[in-house]
């Protein structure tokens, strides 16, 4: 699963925003992207014989920015990289055939429990969920 998260981080690096996984430092650089997921589960397709090593997972992609408009701007870039047009899109992971597809998203919200360091402003965020499918290359 880690290789897939690293591949997503690598893909998003072209957008130029910090990409964190699961936890965010106490003084993050805004805007940023937060990835989170479970450990992945075996594929839903029954193997014909022996273990197959498929991975299926929901990957959460939280975009955080200083303003709601900023969230929408960054989120559009992230979606354009990970799943343009919400289409299933290949994810480059060595030795595997993997892909992502955006399956849903949440409204933009302001996190009033948090302040951007050095300001009295609360950041805004929005969550997209992506469906990850991965199978070993033959």
């Amino acid at each position, binding site marked *: 699963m880690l290789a897939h998260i690293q591949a997503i981080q690598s893909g998003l690096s072209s957008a130029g925003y910090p990409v964190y996984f699961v936890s965010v430092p106490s003084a993050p650089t805004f805007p940023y992207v937060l990835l989170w997921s479970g450990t992945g589960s075996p594929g839903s397709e029954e193997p014909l014989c022996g273990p197959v090593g498929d991975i299926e997972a*929901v990957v959460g992609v939280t975009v955080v920015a200083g303003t709601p408009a900023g969230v929408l701007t960054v989120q559009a870039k992230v979606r354009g990289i990970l799943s343009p047009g919400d289409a299933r899109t290949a994810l480059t992971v060595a030795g595997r055939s993997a892909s992502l597809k955006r399956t849903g998203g949440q409204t933009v919200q302001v996190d009033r429990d948090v302040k951007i360091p050095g300001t009295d402003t609360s950041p805004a965020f929005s969550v997209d969920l992506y469906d990850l499918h991965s199978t070993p290359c033959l």
Partner: protein
Amino acid sequence: MTSLEASGFSEVIQAFATAERASASQARAVVERGAMNIKRQLQRELSDSKHFKGVARDVSYDVRTAGAFGGGIIEAEIGPESGPGSAGNLANVAYFGTSRGGGTVPDPSLALAAEVPRFERELGRLVGEGL
């Protein structure tokens, strides 16, 4: 001959109407059973959470039937209820997190996906019985 055909049609129409009423109520039962299974899975997953176990008691479902001109829709809405003072208000944080951390309870769509094979099997059985 004409009256016989008319009589035959009436009986067939009556049989279809009876079967439709019966299958509509049976289909509602299948939807309701599926909704209950999903509700229980959502409650289990929330109960397993250290921080969000209180949300589990606010998970409920509602089955609605709507229809006109012989057609019908049976739908179920399942999930934590929100409102003043309700623990269900925290469900969004449980499932989707905040600006500083992701969701810690499995996405509810997974409970729906887990129920789909059972639901399809039950509905298929119902359709098979009606033919």
